[in-house]
């Protein structure tokens, strides 16, 4: 594996992913505030949660790009459209499996079955995160497709 190339391409792709998700909220495509969603796993305090969540998402995305790179190396193929396809698959898993499991993982997220409690007060995302706006899946697909495409474009095989 080309570690040097991974560090650079993984960082750029993750930064783009975070930027696109934040931008899509700013453009009102979605209400989903990813930094807040992730940061509240660590702290209930709003401002700190946003900071922790942003950093967490950055690190998480960087690490996750290792999986993409592993697939590139395993298939001996790397280009933007292959990366884009991986990104779309990634988004699909995230929206279906990830979002369904999130209330079980997130310590501050309420469940539809039990409702909010003193500790769990956050609205669950629902199927495909549609609770966070009906265009949320679109923005997640676009951001992850861009993540994969950028990674596919910038990464050089070992």
């Amino acid at each position: 594996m080309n570690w040097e190339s991974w560090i650079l391409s993984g960082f750029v792709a993750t930064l783009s992913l975070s930027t696109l998700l934040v931008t899509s909220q700013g453009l009102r495509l979605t209400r989903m505030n990813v930094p807040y969603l992730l940061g509240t796993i660590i702290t209930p305090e709003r401002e700190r949660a946003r900071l922790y969540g942003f950093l967490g998402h950055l690190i998480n995305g960087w690490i996750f790009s290792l999986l993409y790179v592993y697939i590139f190396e395993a298939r001996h193929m790397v280009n933007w459209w292959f990366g884009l396809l991986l990104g779309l698959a990634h988004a699909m898993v995230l929206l279906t499996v990830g979002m369904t499991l999130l209330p079980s993982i997130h310590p501050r997220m309420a469940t539809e079955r039990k409702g909010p409690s003193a500790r769990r007060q956050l609205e669950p995302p629902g199927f495909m995160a549609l609770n966070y706006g009906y265009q949320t899946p679109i923005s997640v697909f676009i951001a992850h497709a861009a993540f994969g495409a950028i990674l596919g474009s910038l990464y050089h095989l070992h």
Partner: protein
Amino acid sequence: MFASIYRQESAILGFSLNAMANNSPDLESTDFRSYPEIGDYAVIGDCRSAALVSKYGWIDWLCWPRFDSPSIFAALLDRERGGFWRISPIGPFSIEREYLDGSNVLQTKFQTSGGVVTLTDLMPVRDSIRLLMVPDHEIIRRLSCADGEVEIEIELAPRANYGETIPPIRDCGKLGIRIDNGHGVYWLRGDASFQIANSSVLARATLRAGDTLSFSFSYTENAPAVLPPVEHLAERVETCIKWWENWTAQLKYDGDFQDEVMRSALALKLMIFSPSGAIIAAPTTSLPERIGGDLNWDYRYCWLRDASLTIRALIELGFWAEATSFLDWMLHATRLTQPQLRILYSLYGNQPPKERTSKVLRGYRGSSPVRIGNAARDQLQLDVYGEVVDAAAQFAFHGGELDREMQKALLGFGDYVAKHWDSPDQGIWEPRTNPRNHTHSRLLCWTALDRLISLSEQGKLKRAPLDEYKTQAEAIRQQIQLRAWNENLQSYVSELEGEKLDSSLLLLSWYGFEKADAPRMRSTYRKLRERLSTPEGLLYRSEDLPPEGTFAICSFWEAEYLALGGGTTRQARELIDTLTKYRNDLGLYGEEIDGNTGQALGNFPQAFTHVGYIGAALSLNQREKGEQQLAHRPESATPQPSNTKQES
């Protein structure tokens, strides 16, 4: 304390509201489909947005996330299409209501033939709950039954975007009721069993002595939304009350009318947009200045012309944080247009939206159109320069420090005024007519230069072109004395070489142009009383404007003029006493007072009117204690008007 008696007659959305017979001979009828009086409203808020609650328990006005956002409840402007949130007993009831001491937490007590239930309404202030996970914007309503048994009905009819959109409502089980408005989502939670019908949320409950019911209605544009547990709402009500008590504990005022001054300060605080420090004129749009008329304007923006009196009120009451934020906002948020100033700005210093009229809302008691945005944004009003400079001068004279950027901005304003003071403008009352040479605008141009000279001579402002400022200030002074004084009338007049009067002439003393006891001011005051006063002692603002109510701030200017030396302290006190009677039962004022009925008119509540009350009380108190009045002008930088010296 207000007490009145009503009975619901209407059948709304399938519920028969005549279920209970009128058992008590004390309980009378009213039609809930009719509009309450403007003065029947209370305001609650979180220093970001505000809601108007009628004395019947209806929330008839709410815009989220900010004061100037589209409404979700606007029954204030259209009973059928506007949207509302009602919590009230079924059957006849009498009402008492009050704000809890030192707070903006409203309590309405409903007495029915079966018992007594108290409704507490508030919007939690975010500063008080910074460390917790709480909704971005929220209204908490809490019912508690003190005696007997009371059947309660709850109805929430969301109508988004000024009644133009009926948002989808979904019952999400234990999570609550979800109302999705596209870019934002509302959540209703509570410990009642909700039903959804006819695009509204309905519930009924019977409360017995000791029972409570709590509701949270919240809004966010950030997901995931925070869904507060209902069982914690009582605790959060207490936290909010404490936050308000701590805020009012800063009040430094020990004169007469203390309760009224505190209520005015609390009302003013609700109109301060805390993220930026901007102060809106009022939280509503299009409440009419004349019932059935078209004098309906959107006041949910920040007018710079209110700056000077507002800063003085905040500083002298001890609210330095609010005064500093407001000054910062004025001098920094207006950077894009400096040295020119617009007359009004949005909450973050942008230009307010273009004015449009609602195609859906029919207006309060048919007073149409309902306007959104304000066309005055394109007007020229030269008085705003004096207001902003005077506000900064008061801040400095009271011990505040003007940093380099502030000084640079002030010098920019000074240069602009020195070049443009002789131009016609629309003037303080914003008539939608051609520009004219308004005396008040000239006065404020003089004030701007006068304060800059004072600041410079006291070393609080560097590099001011003093000679130029003095030359131009003297030229303005001479113009006002020669051309704004009408020898035939023996009065200052509203326009140069004019014949008509205007209550803003009372401010000639406030800004230090003429002493209040100067012969010209006394004579002008007599003429104003003659032409613009009602038998009850209220003042209309101008002879030039279409028929409307009396303008409340003008009466406070009069009281302050008397307190500054234009009359005796007894006269000033009597006038403040008289004006106090025109507050509503909670101590709130609108923009205007109907000269015939005494009812509030115009947008409600009005920051400027409450600033006027505070100013009049401060000046009266200072005079009675022999303290210096109007510290914004510790000494005259330019010579006192020569006629004053001669005539004195």
